[in-house]
Protein backbone atom coordinates (compact mmCIF):
# COMPACT_ATOMS: atom_id res chain seq x y z
CA UNK A 1 0.00 0.00 0.00
CA UNK A 2 2.37 2.72 -1.15
CA UNK A 3 1.62 6.17 0.19
CA UNK A 4 3.13 7.90 -2.80
CA UNK A 5 2.08 7.29 -6.36
CA UNK A 6 5.02 8.63 -8.34
CA UNK A 7 8.26 6.68 -8.03
CA UNK A 8 10.77 8.77 -6.06
CA UNK A 9 14.44 9.10 -7.00
CA UNK A 10 16.61 9.08 -3.87
CA UNK A 11 20.21 10.21 -4.41
CA UNK A 12 23.36 10.28 -2.29
CA UNK A 13 25.21 13.32 -1.00
CA UNK A 14 28.54 13.11 0.76
CA UNK A 15 29.02 16.89 0.54
CA UNK A 16 27.11 20.08 -0.18
CA UNK A 17 28.31 20.21 -3.82
CA UNK A 18 27.10 16.61 -4.29
CA UNK A 19 23.74 17.53 -2.77
CA UNK A 20 23.41 20.44 -5.16
CA UNK A 21 24.34 18.21 -8.09
CA UNK A 22 21.64 15.70 -7.06
CA UNK A 23 18.94 18.36 -6.58
CA UNK A 24 19.84 20.24 -9.76
CA UNK A 25 19.65 17.04 -11.80
CA UNK A 26 16.24 15.98 -10.57
CA UNK A 27 16.51 13.99 -7.33
CA UNK A 28 13.22 13.85 -5.40
CA UNK A 29 15.12 13.25 -2.18
CA UNK A 30 18.75 13.36 -1.11
CA UNK A 31 20.22 11.36 1.74
CA UNK A 32 23.20 12.38 3.82
CA UNK A 33 24.89 11.70 7.14
CA UNK A 34 26.56 13.44 10.06
CA UNK A 35 30.34 13.56 9.96
CA UNK A 36 30.89 10.65 12.37
CA UNK A 37 30.35 6.93 12.90
CA UNK A 38 26.56 7.31 13.22
CA UNK A 39 26.14 6.48 9.52
CA UNK A 40 27.24 3.71 7.18
CA UNK A 41 29.48 5.87 4.97
CA UNK A 42 31.84 7.12 7.66
CA UNK A 43 34.68 7.93 5.24
CA UNK A 44 37.35 10.61 5.70
CA UNK A 45 36.41 13.96 4.17
CA UNK A 46 32.73 13.09 3.73
CA UNK A 47 29.45 14.09 5.28
CA UNK A 48 27.95 17.11 7.03
CA UNK A 49 28.10 19.12 10.21
CA UNK A 50 24.98 20.82 11.53
CA UNK A 51 25.49 24.14 9.74
CA UNK A 52 26.05 22.34 6.46
CA UNK A 53 22.89 20.32 6.96
CA UNK A 54 20.90 23.51 7.45
CA UNK A 55 22.29 24.87 4.19
CA UNK A 56 21.60 21.53 2.49
CA UNK A 57 18.02 21.53 3.75
CA UNK A 58 17.44 25.12 2.61
CA UNK A 59 18.86 24.39 -0.83
CA UNK A 60 16.85 21.20 -1.29
CA UNK A 61 13.56 22.42 0.16
CA UNK A 62 13.67 25.59 -1.93
CA UNK A 63 13.74 23.33 -4.99
CA UNK A 64 11.13 20.84 -3.82
CA UNK A 65 13.51 18.03 -2.81
CA UNK A 66 13.47 16.22 0.50
CA UNK A 67 16.45 15.64 2.79
CA UNK A 68 16.85 12.31 4.55
CA UNK A 69 19.42 11.65 7.25
CA UNK A 70 21.15 8.27 7.46
CA UNK A 71 21.76 7.23 11.08
CA UNK A 72 22.18 3.62 10.17
CA UNK A 73 24.93 2.06 12.23
CA UNK A 74 24.48 0.02 15.41
CA UNK A 75 25.46 1.99 18.53
CA UNK A 76 27.28 0.17 21.31
CA UNK A 77 27.01 1.26 24.95
CA UNK A 78 29.93 3.72 24.76
CA UNK A 79 28.37 5.48 21.78
CA UNK A 80 24.73 5.33 22.84
CA UNK A 81 24.45 8.93 24.06
CA UNK A 82 26.08 10.22 20.87
CA UNK A 83 23.63 8.28 18.69
CA UNK A 84 20.52 9.39 20.61
CA UNK A 85 21.83 12.98 20.47
CA UNK A 86 22.10 12.55 16.70
CA UNK A 87 18.44 11.46 16.58
CA UNK A 88 17.48 14.51 18.66
CA UNK A 89 19.47 16.80 16.36
CA UNK A 90 17.80 15.25 13.31
CA UNK A 91 14.40 16.03 14.82
CA UNK A 92 15.46 19.61 15.66
CA UNK A 93 16.80 20.14 12.15
CA UNK A 94 13.36 19.34 10.73
CA UNK A 95 14.63 16.91 8.14
CA UNK A 96 12.10 14.93 6.14
CA UNK A 97 13.03 11.50 7.49
CA UNK A 98 15.71 9.60 9.35
CA UNK A 99 17.01 6.31 7.99
CA UNK A 100 17.87 3.91 10.82
CA UNK A 101 18.72 0.25 11.43
CA UNK A 102 19.30 -0.36 15.13
CA UNK A 103 16.19 -1.69 16.94
CA UNK A 104 17.03 0.09 20.20
CA UNK A 105 17.64 3.39 18.45
CA UNK A 106 14.44 3.05 16.41
CA UNK A 107 12.57 2.51 19.66
CA UNK A 108 14.19 5.62 21.13
CA UNK A 109 13.23 7.74 18.11
CA UNK A 110 9.65 6.45 18.05
CA UNK A 111 9.24 7.20 21.75
CA UNK A 112 10.90 10.62 21.95
CA UNK A 113 10.09 12.00 18.51
CA UNK A 114 6.73 10.55 17.47
CA UNK A 115 6.43 13.01 14.58
CA UNK A 116 9.80 12.13 13.07
CA UNK A 117 9.35 10.08 9.92
CA UNK A 118 11.40 6.88 10.16
CA UNK A 119 12.73 4.77 7.31
CA UNK A 120 14.20 1.34 7.95
CA UNK A 121 17.71 1.35 6.50
CA UNK A 122 18.97 -1.39 4.24
CA UNK A 123 21.25 -2.14 7.21
CA UNK A 124 18.11 -3.19 9.13
CA UNK A 125 18.10 -6.47 7.13
CA UNK A 126 14.33 -6.60 6.53
CA UNK A 127 13.91 -9.04 3.65
CA UNK A 128 10.35 -10.24 4.23
CA UNK A 129 6.87 -9.00 5.09
CA UNK A 130 6.89 -10.10 8.73
CA UNK A 131 10.14 -8.28 9.48
CA UNK A 132 8.75 -5.14 7.81
CA UNK A 133 5.43 -5.47 9.64
CA UNK A 134 7.29 -5.83 12.94
CA UNK A 135 9.19 -2.59 12.34
CA UNK A 136 5.99 -0.84 11.31
CA UNK A 137 4.05 -2.03 14.37
CA UNK A 138 6.80 -1.48 16.92
CA UNK A 139 8.68 1.56 15.59
CA UNK A 140 6.15 3.09 13.23
CA UNK A 141 8.47 3.03 10.21
CA UNK A 142 6.92 4.56 7.10
CA UNK A 143 9.34 3.28 4.46
CA UNK A 144 11.71 0.32 4.13
CA UNK A 145 14.86 0.02 2.04
CA UNK A 146 15.21 -3.58 0.87
CA UNK A 147 18.53 -5.42 1.01
CA UNK A 148 19.92 -6.19 -2.43
CA UNK A 149 19.22 -9.91 -2.08
CA UNK A 150 15.65 -10.20 -3.36
CA UNK A 151 14.51 -11.37 -6.77
CA UNK A 152 11.95 -9.29 -8.69
CA UNK A 153 9.18 -11.72 -7.73
CA UNK A 154 10.16 -11.44 -4.09
CA UNK A 155 10.18 -7.64 -4.31
CA UNK A 156 6.68 -7.85 -5.79
CA UNK A 157 5.49 -10.08 -2.93
CA UNK A 158 7.01 -7.73 -0.36
CA UNK A 159 5.42 -4.64 -1.95
CA UNK A 160 2.01 -6.32 -2.10
CA UNK A 161 2.07 -7.23 1.57
CA UNK A 162 3.98 -4.26 2.99
CA UNK A 163 2.15 -1.77 5.18
CA UNK A 164 4.78 0.85 4.25
CA UNK A 165 6.46 2.27 1.16
CA UNK A 166 9.19 0.10 -0.33
CA UNK A 167 12.48 1.48 -1.63
CA UNK A 168 14.98 -0.54 -3.67
CA UNK A 169 18.53 0.13 -4.79
CA UNK A 170 18.70 1.22 -8.42
CA UNK A 171 22.30 1.95 -9.21
CA UNK A 172 25.74 1.74 -7.64
CA UNK A 173 28.01 -0.63 -5.82
CA UNK A 174 26.44 -4.01 -5.32
CA UNK A 175 26.45 -5.44 -1.82
CA UNK A 176 25.94 -9.18 -2.23
CA UNK A 177 25.47 -10.05 1.43
CA UNK A 178 22.39 -9.25 3.48
CA UNK A 179 23.23 -5.75 4.65
CA UNK A 180 23.34 -5.56 8.44
CA UNK A 181 24.27 -9.24 8.67
CA UNK A 182 27.81 -9.11 7.33
CA UNK A 183 30.88 -9.06 9.55
CA UNK A 184 33.45 -10.01 6.87
CA UNK A 185 35.02 -6.55 7.04
CA UNK A 186 35.50 -6.59 10.81
CA UNK A 187 36.91 -10.12 10.59
CA UNK A 188 39.80 -8.68 8.54
CA UNK A 189 40.05 -5.12 9.85
CA UNK A 190 38.14 -4.80 13.12
CA UNK A 191 35.67 -2.38 11.48
CA UNK A 192 32.36 -3.27 9.85
CA UNK A 193 29.31 -1.43 8.50
CA UNK A 194 27.38 -2.27 11.67
CA UNK A 195 30.00 -1.16 14.18
CA UNK A 196 31.85 1.65 12.40
CA UNK A 197 29.92 2.52 9.27
CA UNK A 198 32.61 1.24 6.93
CA UNK A 199 33.29 -1.83 4.80
CA UNK A 200 36.84 -2.63 3.73
CA UNK A 201 38.09 0.70 5.16
CA UNK A 202 40.68 2.65 3.17
CA UNK A 203 43.05 2.89 6.12
CA UNK A 204 43.39 -0.92 6.09
CA UNK A 205 44.24 -1.02 2.36
CA UNK A 206 47.80 -1.56 1.18
CA UNK A 207 49.01 -1.71 -2.42
CA UNK A 208 52.18 -3.64 -3.31
CA UNK A 209 54.23 -3.92 -6.48
CA UNK A 210 55.73 -7.41 -6.66
CA UNK A 211 57.37 -9.58 -9.33
CA UNK A 212 54.03 -11.42 -9.50
CA UNK A 213 52.24 -8.13 -10.27
CA UNK A 214 50.40 -5.42 -8.38
CA UNK A 215 48.66 -6.68 -5.26
CA UNK A 216 46.02 -5.26 -2.96
CA UNK A 217 45.80 -6.15 0.70
CA UNK A 218 43.16 -5.41 3.31
CA UNK A 219 44.15 -5.79 6.94
CA UNK A 220 47.25 -7.57 5.63
CA UNK A 221 45.16 -10.14 3.72
CA UNK A 222 45.77 -10.55 -0.01
CA UNK A 223 42.54 -9.55 -1.78
CA UNK A 224 43.66 -9.54 -5.39
CA UNK A 225 46.66 -9.70 -7.69
CA UNK A 226 46.69 -7.98 -11.07
CA UNK A 227 48.53 -8.89 -14.24
CA UNK A 228 50.41 -6.17 -16.08
CA UNK A 229 47.96 -3.87 -17.82
CA UNK A 230 44.98 -5.25 -15.91
CA UNK A 231 42.85 -2.52 -14.30
CA UNK A 232 43.08 -2.68 -10.52
CA UNK A 233 39.95 -1.96 -8.49
CA UNK A 234 39.39 -0.93 -4.89
CA UNK A 235 39.89 -4.04 -2.70
CA UNK A 236 36.36 -4.47 -1.38
CA UNK A 237 36.93 -7.82 0.22
CA UNK A 238 33.98 -9.72 -1.30
CA UNK A 239 35.09 -8.66 -4.79
CA UNK A 240 38.59 -10.10 -4.71
CA UNK A 241 39.91 -13.23 -6.41
CA UNK A 242 40.42 -16.17 -4.11
CA UNK A 243 41.22 -19.85 -4.35
CA UNK A 244 38.49 -22.43 -3.84
CA UNK A 245 39.07 -26.11 -4.67
CA UNK A 246 42.18 -25.28 -6.68
CA UNK A 247 40.59 -22.53 -8.82
CA UNK A 248 41.35 -18.84 -8.47
CA UNK A 249 38.30 -16.72 -9.34
CA UNK A 250 35.88 -14.13 -8.05
CA UNK A 251 34.58 -16.60 -5.46
CA UNK A 252 31.97 -14.20 -4.07
CA UNK A 253 31.27 -11.56 -6.73
CA UNK A 254 32.84 -9.83 -9.72
CA UNK A 255 33.56 -6.13 -9.31
CA UNK A 256 30.41 -4.87 -10.99
CA UNK A 257 27.60 -2.40 -10.34
CA UNK A 258 23.90 -2.82 -9.81
CA UNK A 259 21.75 -1.21 -12.52
CA UNK A 260 17.97 -1.64 -12.68
CA UNK A 261 17.26 0.40 -15.82
CA UNK A 262 16.25 -2.75 -17.72
CA UNK A 263 13.49 -3.63 -15.26
CA UNK A 264 12.31 -0.14 -14.36
CA UNK A 265 8.81 -0.68 -15.88
CA UNK A 266 8.36 -3.83 -13.81
CA UNK A 267 9.45 -2.08 -10.61
CA UNK A 268 7.09 0.79 -11.33
CA UNK A 269 4.20 -1.56 -12.11
CA UNK A 270 4.53 -3.52 -8.88
CA UNK A 271 4.46 -0.27 -6.91
CA UNK A 272 8.02 0.26 -5.72
CA UNK A 273 7.80 3.71 -4.14
CA UNK A 274 11.41 4.81 -4.42
CA UNK A 275 14.66 3.95 -6.16
CA UNK A 276 17.91 4.67 -4.42
CA UNK A 277 21.28 5.50 -5.93
CA UNK A 278 24.26 4.28 -3.89
CA UNK A 279 27.37 6.39 -3.45
CA UNK A 280 27.72 9.04 -0.77
CA UNK A 281 31.47 8.46 -1.14
CA UNK A 282 31.31 9.50 -4.84
CA UNK A 283 32.15 12.86 -6.40
CA UNK A 284 29.59 15.58 -7.13
CA UNK A 285 30.18 14.98 -10.87
CA UNK A 286 29.30 11.31 -10.45
CA UNK A 287 26.20 12.07 -8.42
CA UNK A 288 25.05 14.68 -10.93
CA UNK A 289 25.46 12.45 -13.97
CA UNK A 290 23.93 9.34 -12.44
CA UNK A 291 21.01 11.40 -11.10
CA UNK A 292 20.45 12.92 -14.52
CA UNK A 293 20.28 9.51 -16.24
CA UNK A 294 18.04 7.99 -13.58
CA UNK A 295 15.72 11.03 -13.71
CA UNK A 296 15.41 10.73 -17.50
CA UNK A 297 14.75 6.99 -17.25
CA UNK A 298 12.09 7.29 -14.55
CA UNK A 299 10.31 10.10 -16.41
CA UNK A 300 10.41 8.21 -19.71
CA UNK A 301 9.13 5.07 -18.05
CA UNK A 302 6.32 6.89 -16.23
CA UNK A 303 5.22 8.60 -19.43
CA UNK A 304 5.14 5.41 -21.53
CA UNK A 305 5.82 2.19 -19.60
CA UNK A 306 5.09 -0.05 -22.60
CA UNK A 307 7.27 1.84 -25.01
CA UNK A 308 10.11 2.34 -22.53
CA UNK A 309 13.56 1.12 -23.57
CA UNK A 310 16.76 2.13 -21.76
CA UNK A 311 18.63 4.37 -24.18
CA UNK A 312 22.12 3.19 -25.18
CA UNK A 313 23.37 6.64 -24.24
CA UNK A 314 22.08 6.25 -20.65
CA UNK A 315 23.67 2.83 -20.31
CA UNK A 316 26.99 3.99 -21.71
CA UNK A 317 26.91 6.93 -19.35
CA UNK A 318 26.20 4.77 -16.32
CA UNK A 319 28.70 2.06 -17.23
CA UNK A 320 31.39 4.72 -17.40
CA UNK A 321 30.73 5.30 -13.70
CA UNK A 322 30.17 1.67 -12.77
CA UNK A 323 32.56 -0.46 -10.79
CA UNK A 324 34.46 -2.63 -13.28
CA UNK A 325 32.69 -0.60 -16.03
CA UNK A 326 29.94 -3.22 -16.16
CA UNK A 327 26.57 -3.75 -14.53
CA UNK A 328 24.21 -6.45 -13.36
CA UNK A 329 20.68 -6.89 -12.07
CA UNK A 330 22.11 -8.70 -9.04
CA UNK A 331 19.57 -10.89 -7.28
CA UNK A 332 16.67 -9.21 -9.08
CA UNK A 333 17.03 -11.42 -12.16
CA UNK A 334 16.71 -14.67 -10.25
CA UNK A 335 13.75 -16.78 -11.20
CA UNK A 336 13.99 -19.07 -8.21
CA UNK A 337 11.24 -18.42 -5.65
Amino acid at each position, binding site marked *: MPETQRMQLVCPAGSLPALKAAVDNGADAVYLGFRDATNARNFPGLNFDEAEIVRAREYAHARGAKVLLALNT*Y*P*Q*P*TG*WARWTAAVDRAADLELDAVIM*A*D*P*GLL*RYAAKHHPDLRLHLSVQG*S*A*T*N*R*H*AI*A*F*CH*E*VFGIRQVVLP*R*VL*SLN*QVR*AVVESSPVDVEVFGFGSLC*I*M*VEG*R*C*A*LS*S*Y*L*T*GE*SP*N*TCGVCSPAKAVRWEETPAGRQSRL*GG*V*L*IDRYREGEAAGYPTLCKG*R*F*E*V*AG*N*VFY*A*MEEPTSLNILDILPALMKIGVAAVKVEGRQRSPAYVGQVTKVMRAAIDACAADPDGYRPSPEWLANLNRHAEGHSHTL*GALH*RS*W*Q
Partner: protein
Amino acid sequence: MKLSLGPIQYFWPGQTVREFYAEVADWPVEIVYLGEMVCAKRRQLRLQDWLVIADELEEAGKEVILTSLALMEADSELSHLRRICDNGDFKVEANDMAAVRLINGRPFVAGPHLNTYNAATLALWREFGAVRWVMPLELSAATLAQLQAERPAGLQTEVFVYGHMPLSFSARCFTARAHDLPKDRCEFRCLDYPEGMPLKTQDSEDLFVINGIQMQSGHPVNLLAEVPQMRELGVDVLRLSPRAEGTEAIVRAFDAARHGQPVELASFQNEPWCNGYWHGEAGMKVAAR
Protein backbone atom coordinates in the same frame (compact mmCIF):
# COMPACT_ATOMS: atom_id res chain seq x y z
CA MET B 1 27.78 -21.59 33.48
CA LYS B 2 25.91 -23.84 31.08
CA LEU B 3 27.23 -25.25 27.84
CA SER B 4 25.13 -25.16 24.71
CA LEU B 5 25.57 -26.87 21.39
CA GLY B 6 24.66 -24.42 18.64
CA PRO B 7 22.80 -25.51 15.52
CA ILE B 8 24.70 -27.64 12.99
CA GLN B 9 25.66 -25.01 10.45
CA TYR B 10 26.49 -27.46 7.65
CA PHE B 11 24.31 -29.74 5.52
CA TRP B 12 24.73 -33.28 6.78
CA PRO B 13 22.71 -36.30 5.66
CA GLY B 14 19.70 -36.91 7.91
CA GLN B 15 21.12 -40.14 9.25
CA THR B 16 24.40 -38.42 10.19
CA VAL B 17 22.43 -35.79 12.09
CA ARG B 18 20.44 -38.44 13.98
CA GLU B 19 23.61 -40.33 14.93
CA PHE B 20 25.29 -37.12 16.03
CA TYR B 21 22.48 -36.19 18.42
CA ALA B 22 22.24 -39.73 19.75
CA GLU B 23 25.80 -39.18 21.01
CA VAL B 24 25.06 -35.66 22.27
CA ALA B 25 22.57 -37.14 24.73
CA ASP B 26 25.54 -38.33 26.83
CA TRP B 27 27.70 -35.21 26.56
CA PRO B 28 27.95 -32.59 29.32
CA VAL B 29 25.94 -29.91 27.49
CA GLU B 30 22.74 -28.57 29.05
CA ILE B 31 21.26 -26.83 26.01
CA VAL B 32 20.94 -28.02 22.41
CA TYR B 33 19.86 -25.84 19.47
CA LEU B 34 18.26 -27.88 16.69
CA GLY B 35 17.25 -27.16 13.13
CA GLU B 36 18.35 -25.27 10.05
CA MET B 37 19.56 -21.68 10.21
CA VAL B 38 21.42 -21.33 6.91
CA CYS B 39 19.51 -22.55 3.85
CA ALA B 40 15.81 -23.30 3.30
CA LYS B 41 16.66 -25.85 0.63
CA ARG B 42 18.29 -28.19 3.15
CA ARG B 43 15.39 -30.49 3.90
CA GLN B 44 16.89 -33.88 4.72
CA LEU B 45 15.05 -33.57 8.02
CA ARG B 46 11.54 -32.15 8.18
CA LEU B 47 10.17 -30.34 11.18
CA GLN B 48 8.56 -33.52 12.54
CA ASP B 49 11.95 -35.29 12.28
CA TRP B 50 13.62 -32.52 14.24
CA LEU B 51 10.87 -32.72 16.85
CA VAL B 52 11.56 -36.45 17.32
CA ILE B 53 15.23 -35.64 17.99
CA ALA B 54 14.12 -32.80 20.27
CA ASP B 55 11.94 -35.15 22.32
CA GLU B 56 14.80 -37.63 22.69
CA LEU B 57 17.21 -34.94 23.84
CA GLU B 58 14.68 -33.53 26.27
CA GLU B 59 14.19 -37.05 27.59
CA ALA B 60 17.97 -37.11 28.14
CA GLY B 61 17.67 -33.96 30.26
CA LYS B 62 18.66 -31.32 27.71
CA GLU B 63 16.92 -28.01 27.18
CA VAL B 64 16.05 -27.95 23.49
CA ILE B 65 15.66 -24.78 21.42
CA LEU B 66 14.53 -24.79 17.79
CA THR B 67 16.59 -22.41 15.68
CA SER B 68 15.38 -20.55 12.59
CA LEU B 69 16.79 -19.08 9.38
CA ALA B 70 18.89 -15.92 9.38
CA LEU B 71 17.66 -14.94 5.90
CA MET B 72 14.05 -15.40 4.85
CA GLU B 73 12.68 -14.15 1.56
CA ALA B 74 10.01 -16.52 0.24
CA ASP B 75 6.52 -17.02 1.65
CA SER B 76 7.22 -20.76 1.90
CA GLU B 77 10.07 -19.95 4.30
CA LEU B 78 7.78 -17.76 6.38
CA SER B 79 5.09 -20.43 6.64
CA HIS B 80 7.74 -22.92 7.74
CA LEU B 81 8.88 -20.37 10.32
CA ARG B 82 5.33 -20.08 11.59
CA ARG B 83 5.15 -23.84 12.05
CA ILE B 84 8.41 -23.77 14.01
CA CYS B 85 7.13 -20.94 16.22
CA ASP B 86 3.82 -22.74 16.79
CA ASN B 87 5.41 -26.11 17.66
CA GLY B 88 3.87 -25.92 21.12
CA ASP B 89 6.71 -27.53 23.08
CA PHE B 90 10.06 -25.90 22.46
CA LYS B 91 11.35 -22.35 22.57
CA VAL B 92 12.62 -20.81 19.35
CA GLU B 93 15.84 -18.96 18.55
CA ALA B 94 14.98 -15.89 16.46
CA ASN B 95 17.56 -14.81 13.89
CA ASP B 96 15.29 -12.38 12.05
CA MET B 97 12.66 -9.89 13.17
CA ALA B 98 10.07 -12.01 11.34
CA ALA B 99 10.61 -14.68 13.97
CA VAL B 100 10.21 -12.19 16.83
CA ARG B 101 6.86 -11.20 15.33
CA LEU B 102 5.60 -14.76 14.84
CA ILE B 103 6.79 -15.89 18.28
CA ASN B 104 4.27 -13.30 19.42
CA GLY B 105 5.29 -12.80 23.03
CA ARG B 106 6.18 -16.39 23.92
CA PRO B 107 9.57 -16.97 25.57
CA PHE B 108 12.39 -17.03 22.98
CA VAL B 109 16.12 -16.75 22.45
CA ALA B 110 17.38 -13.67 20.60
CA GLY B 111 19.91 -15.27 18.25
CA PRO B 112 23.28 -13.90 17.17
CA HIS B 113 21.88 -12.44 13.92
CA LEU B 114 19.24 -10.21 15.53
CA ASN B 115 21.87 -7.49 15.90
CA THR B 116 21.77 -6.77 19.61
CA TYR B 117 24.41 -4.07 20.07
CA ASN B 118 23.08 -2.02 23.02
CA ALA B 119 20.99 -2.08 26.18
CA ALA B 120 17.94 -0.50 24.54
CA THR B 121 17.81 -3.41 22.12
CA LEU B 122 18.25 -5.89 24.97
CA ALA B 123 15.28 -4.28 26.73
CA LEU B 124 13.22 -4.47 23.56
CA TRP B 125 13.80 -8.21 23.10
CA ARG B 126 13.08 -8.80 26.78
CA GLU B 127 9.80 -6.93 26.41
CA PHE B 128 8.86 -9.20 23.50
CA GLY B 129 9.59 -12.34 25.53
CA ALA B 130 13.32 -13.05 25.17
CA VAL B 131 14.76 -15.11 28.03
CA ARG B 132 18.27 -15.25 26.56
CA TRP B 133 20.31 -13.34 23.99
CA VAL B 134 23.33 -14.41 22.01
CA MET B 135 26.01 -11.76 21.62
CA PRO B 136 26.79 -10.70 18.01
CA LEU B 137 30.03 -12.35 16.88
CA GLU B 138 31.91 -9.10 16.34
CA LEU B 139 31.49 -7.62 19.82
CA SER B 140 34.27 -7.51 22.41
CA ALA B 141 34.57 -8.43 26.07
CA ALA B 142 34.70 -4.71 26.93
CA THR B 143 31.37 -4.09 25.20
CA LEU B 144 29.87 -7.17 26.78
CA ALA B 145 30.88 -5.92 30.21
CA GLN B 146 28.90 -2.72 29.61
CA LEU B 147 25.90 -4.62 28.28
CA GLN B 148 25.96 -6.99 31.26
CA ALA B 149 25.77 -3.99 33.59
CA GLU B 150 22.57 -2.79 31.90
CA ARG B 151 21.02 -6.17 31.13
CA PRO B 152 17.34 -6.43 32.06
CA ALA B 153 16.30 -8.94 34.73
CA GLY B 154 15.31 -12.36 33.43
CA LEU B 155 17.58 -12.25 30.41
CA GLN B 156 20.46 -14.74 30.16
CA THR B 157 23.59 -14.04 28.12
CA GLU B 158 25.11 -16.55 25.71
CA VAL B 159 28.47 -16.20 23.94
CA PHE B 160 29.69 -18.09 20.86
CA VAL B 161 32.95 -19.46 22.26
CA TYR B 162 33.99 -22.14 19.80
CA GLY B 163 33.61 -22.89 16.10
CA HIS B 164 33.64 -21.39 12.63
CA MET B 165 31.86 -18.07 13.02
CA PRO B 166 28.85 -17.32 10.82
CA LEU B 167 30.01 -13.98 9.40
CA SER B 168 27.57 -13.27 6.56
CA PHE B 169 24.56 -14.47 4.59
CA SER B 170 23.76 -13.82 0.95
CA ALA B 171 21.08 -14.30 -1.69
CA ARG B 172 23.62 -16.20 -3.71
CA CYS B 173 25.03 -19.60 -2.99
CA PHE B 174 28.81 -19.62 -2.98
CA THR B 175 29.01 -23.40 -2.95
CA ALA B 176 26.92 -23.55 -6.13
CA ARG B 177 29.02 -20.74 -7.61
CA ALA B 178 32.23 -22.67 -6.89
CA HIS B 179 30.73 -25.57 -8.87
CA ASP B 180 29.57 -23.27 -11.65
CA LEU B 181 25.96 -24.19 -10.90
CA PRO B 182 23.02 -21.81 -10.58
CA LYS B 183 21.61 -21.57 -7.07
CA ASP B 184 18.24 -23.01 -8.07
CA ARG B 185 19.96 -26.11 -9.46
CA CYS B 186 22.62 -26.50 -6.79
CA GLU B 187 22.41 -30.33 -6.76
CA PHE B 188 22.76 -30.07 -2.97
CA ARG B 189 26.54 -29.91 -3.30
CA CYS B 190 26.78 -28.80 0.34
CA LEU B 191 26.23 -32.47 1.24
CA ASP B 192 29.76 -33.14 -0.08
CA TYR B 193 31.33 -30.69 2.39
CA PRO B 194 30.55 -31.60 6.00
CA GLU B 195 32.67 -28.64 7.16
CA GLY B 196 32.18 -26.36 4.17
CA MET B 197 34.64 -25.42 1.41
CA PRO B 198 37.83 -23.58 2.40
CA LEU B 199 38.36 -20.25 0.65
CA LYS B 200 42.02 -19.23 0.56
CA THR B 201 43.87 -16.14 -0.57
CA GLN B 202 46.15 -16.35 -3.60
CA ASP B 203 49.05 -16.68 -1.20
CA SER B 204 47.40 -19.70 0.44
CA GLU B 205 46.13 -18.14 3.65
CA ASP B 206 42.90 -19.61 5.09
CA LEU B 207 40.42 -16.75 4.88
CA PHE B 208 36.83 -17.97 4.93
CA VAL B 209 34.81 -21.17 4.78
CA ILE B 210 32.06 -21.31 2.17
CA ASN B 211 28.90 -22.91 3.53
CA GLY B 212 26.18 -22.47 0.91
CA ILE B 213 24.79 -18.94 1.21
CA GLN B 214 26.84 -18.37 4.34
CA MET B 215 30.45 -17.26 4.75
CA GLN B 216 32.23 -18.41 7.88
CA SER B 217 35.52 -17.46 9.46
CA GLY B 218 38.43 -19.37 7.95
CA HIS B 219 39.56 -20.39 11.41
CA PRO B 220 37.32 -21.31 14.32
CA VAL B 221 37.03 -18.88 17.18
CA ASN B 222 38.39 -20.49 20.34
CA LEU B 223 37.76 -18.77 23.69
CA LEU B 224 38.77 -21.69 25.90
CA ALA B 225 41.35 -19.60 27.76
CA GLU B 226 38.79 -16.83 28.26
CA VAL B 227 36.29 -19.01 30.16
CA PRO B 228 37.32 -17.62 33.59
CA GLN B 229 36.76 -14.10 32.24
CA MET B 230 33.30 -15.16 31.01
CA ARG B 231 32.46 -16.28 34.51
CA GLU B 232 33.56 -12.93 35.95
CA LEU B 233 31.37 -11.16 33.40
CA GLY B 234 28.33 -13.19 34.42
CA VAL B 235 27.95 -15.01 31.10
CA ASP B 236 25.28 -17.70 31.55
CA VAL B 237 25.81 -19.93 28.52
CA LEU B 238 28.83 -20.86 26.40
CA ARG B 239 27.93 -21.87 22.84
CA LEU B 240 29.95 -24.50 20.97
CA SER B 241 29.35 -24.97 17.26
CA PRO B 242 29.24 -28.60 16.06
CA ARG B 243 32.01 -29.87 13.80
CA ALA B 244 32.02 -32.92 11.56
CA GLU B 245 34.65 -34.60 13.74
CA GLY B 246 35.86 -34.14 17.28
CA THR B 247 32.97 -32.18 18.75
CA GLU B 248 32.93 -34.30 21.90
CA ALA B 249 36.56 -33.42 22.71
CA ILE B 250 35.67 -29.74 22.33
CA VAL B 251 32.67 -30.15 24.65
CA ARG B 252 34.77 -31.99 27.26
CA ALA B 253 37.52 -29.36 27.17
CA PHE B 254 35.04 -26.53 27.76
CA ASP B 255 33.29 -28.60 30.42
CA ALA B 256 36.58 -28.96 32.29
CA ALA B 257 37.35 -25.26 31.85
CA ARG B 258 34.01 -24.11 33.25
CA HIS B 259 34.58 -26.31 36.31
CA GLY B 260 38.05 -24.88 36.79
CA GLN B 261 39.62 -28.25 36.12
CA PRO B 262 42.81 -28.82 34.10
CA VAL B 263 42.03 -29.03 30.39
CA GLU B 264 43.50 -31.94 28.51
CA LEU B 265 45.08 -30.92 25.22
CA ALA B 266 42.76 -32.05 22.45
CA SER B 267 43.65 -32.02 18.76
CA PHE B 268 41.41 -29.02 18.07
CA GLN B 269 43.72 -26.91 20.21
CA ASN B 270 46.57 -27.58 17.80
CA GLU B 271 44.64 -26.29 14.80
CA PRO B 272 44.87 -22.63 13.87
CA TRP B 273 42.18 -20.56 15.56
CA CYS B 274 41.35 -16.96 16.35
CA ASN B 275 39.99 -14.82 19.18
CA GLY B 276 40.39 -11.24 17.92
CA TYR B 277 36.81 -10.06 18.32
CA TRP B 278 36.69 -10.88 22.02
CA HIS B 279 39.83 -8.81 22.57
CA GLY B 280 38.54 -5.84 20.56
CA GLU B 281 40.60 -6.54 17.45
CA ALA B 282 40.01 -7.85 13.94
CA GLY B 283 38.17 -11.16 14.30
CA MET B 284 40.82 -13.21 12.52
CA LYS B 285 43.60 -12.14 14.89
CA VAL B 286 45.02 -14.18 17.71
CA ALA B 287 45.26 -11.63 20.48
CA ALA B 288 48.03 -11.84 23.03
CA ARG B 289 46.83 -12.80 26.45
